[in-house]
């Protein structure tokens, strides 16, 4: 099965902040037979020709968010159908806002996402939010960071079925500081503000993702060392004496 796995990275030329592309490098190093394809802004995305096992998009600048949303608007229906069909998506950092609705800036301007999920974001470029993150994905501890100008809120008229939270927060903020639900999960779509890079910082989650994608029970690249760093971080972040906000 491993040889048939294809990962499509959306717009790596702009969606590459905060080491996020190393999520995919880690998959590649852990499963060398995985095929990684890059879809660029000025091309038709690969998913229009062949459905991949995983679509990935990482953190962008605010201008990058606009460009990505503009580009993907014409492919919205296909994205929705892939989410419904259970194609895996991993969307990290503020890229998740591209799949939501409006991004309202404190200066009064507004950008539009794809409106696939009923969330909206509030952005304040003069106040950057930084924190550590500790949460749960089912029975797996999740660690990482938040470093962003935005937070997201579920639209008032959104139904409970529209999406679930990806992680349940133990320490740090959820989609916004007032809730414990972090990220977006629908079928195999996973979107989260948590950066790290997420897959390198969370080897148990990565193993689970790869297994769900059909890669089998993979031994990750430098799994022993990754687990040691992960376990130390879980312990550190679980310590009430560890401050969580920058």
């Amino acid at each position: 099965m491993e040889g048939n796995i294809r990962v499509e990275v959306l717009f790596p030329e702009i969606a590459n902040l905060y080491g996020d592309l190393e999520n995919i490098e880690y998959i590649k190093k852990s499963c060398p037979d995985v095929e990684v394809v890059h879809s660029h802004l000025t091309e038709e995305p690969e998913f229009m020709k062949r459905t991949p096992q995983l679509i990935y998009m990482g953190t962008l600048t605010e201008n990058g968010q606009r460009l990505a949303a503009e580009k993907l608007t014409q492919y919205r229906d296909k994205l929705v159908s892939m989410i419904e069909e259970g194609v895996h998506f991993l969307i990290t950092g503020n890229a998740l806002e591209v799949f939501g609705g409006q991004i309202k800036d404190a200066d009064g301007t507004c950008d539009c996402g794809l409106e696939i999920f009923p969330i909206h974001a509030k952005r304040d470029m003069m106040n950057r939010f930084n924190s550590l993150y500790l949460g749960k994905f089912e029975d797996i501890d999740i660690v990482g960071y938040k470093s962003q100008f935005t937070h997201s809120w579920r639209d008032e008229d959104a139904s409970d079925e529209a999406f679930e939270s990806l992680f349940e927060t133990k320490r740090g903020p959820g989609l916004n500081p007032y809730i414990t639900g972090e990220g977006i999960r629908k079928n195999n779509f996973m979107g989260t503000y948590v950066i790290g890079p997420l897959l390198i910082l969370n080897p148990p989650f990565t193993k689970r993702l790869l297994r769900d994608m059909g890669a089998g029970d993979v031994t990750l690249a430098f799994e022993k060392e990754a687990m040691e760093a992960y376990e130390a971080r879980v312990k550190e972040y679980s310590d009430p004496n560890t401050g969580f906000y920058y």
Partner: protein
Amino acid sequence: MGKLRFYIALWAAKLSIVALKITRHNGTNFPGVLALKICPQFLKYAGKPEKIIAVTGTNGKTTVCNMLLDMLTMDGIDVLNNKMGSNINSGIASSLIYGSSLSGKCRYKVGVFEVDERSALRVFPYMKPEYLLITNLSRDSIMRNGHPEYIAGILDRYIPETTKLVLNADDLISSAVAPENSRVYFGIEKMPGDIKGCINLINDMQICPRCHHMLEYEYRRYNHIGKAYCPVCGFKAPEYDYAGINVNLDDMKIDVRDKEGTGHYRLLNESVFNIYNVVSAVALLREMGYSHQKIQEFFEKLNIVGTRYDEEHVGDKTLYRLLAKEKNAFATSRVFDYISTLPGDKEIILMNSCQGDMKHWSENTCWLYDCDFEFLNRADIKNIVVCGPRRLDHRLRLLLAGVSEDRISYAEKEMDAPNKLKLFENDNVFVLYGTDSISLGMKVADKVLGMMKKGAGNREGGDK
């Protein structure tokens, strides 16, 4: 009320200077902090030099500022500056307090100020530089600076419209700021070692700002620094008004050509980073009216700042003390690249965990995956000692960069790291410390130095 507040703030801050002198706490930001606390608009009312030169940018601004300060001082000018304080609004306020009379009048005609790029919003509304030199804009602290487009946006918004900009044409991010302002560009023409593709993890200028197709580079130094053009719409980087040419690293010389002629300059350091610093300083001084001849004379007498780069020879071994800014992947990658180009076998003590963050939370280590640890995957780097709070993260990052396990050593505490060195024949040992671990870095380096001296002494004793 504003002016009265200002005087109260000024006099209180002046008094604090006396108190600081008595208690031997010179060179702190406290007077500025106090003044801004009493009068938030202190910078608006404070007396300022007639001619203000500001330097900002992600990397190199301290070095360029120090060079400019030294050269203007060589010219006999008494220059007000913030060298001893910080580069944020409180540091600049402190400088203005030191430089003013009790009536608030500035005693200096010329000021050279290093301005933190993110602090532009707190400084430039009140201080209008005649010239602003922007060295470059690149990724820095994720928590504070976000990304370079964000910083460019701040500069766009707050640079005074009367300020003339001296910009790096080889950096498409900073060269595009404040497009309405008067400007000149500096850059370095094609030189040996240039490449066309990007070998770095950070590449923040990949698409054409006009048509969004992929940019290409006539030549590239590192990351997005180089001469870019768009093969689709014809967009291209600005032409140089001040062009670094004929870079000669054997003789450590560079020429700078402008519309009036060419000057011949001494390089202070072989790193490309510092070559840009030299060209930028020449460009600024030329704009101020100095002749090539005069600037050449200044350069002959300049030295590079010690805390950022230092080497010491003991017997057959060399110790390098190098600042590798923690949480700044771009700057640390430059250091790793620089080390990789030096001849000889090497060992590295990697101690740039962020000590400051460990005091109240835990470091955001995303930057490790923006940073080119791959430069350290070399046969001549025999041993890398990871240590300190983030040692497990550094070890994993090195492994993922391809560094083999047998070349990585491990010490919990920084002071134990020297014990993990092999100190082989003709060893070059690099102690890499961060901005908030300079003093710890010096202690570790001193320990290494002691071990080297002891080893050299033992060998001399043995030879007898």
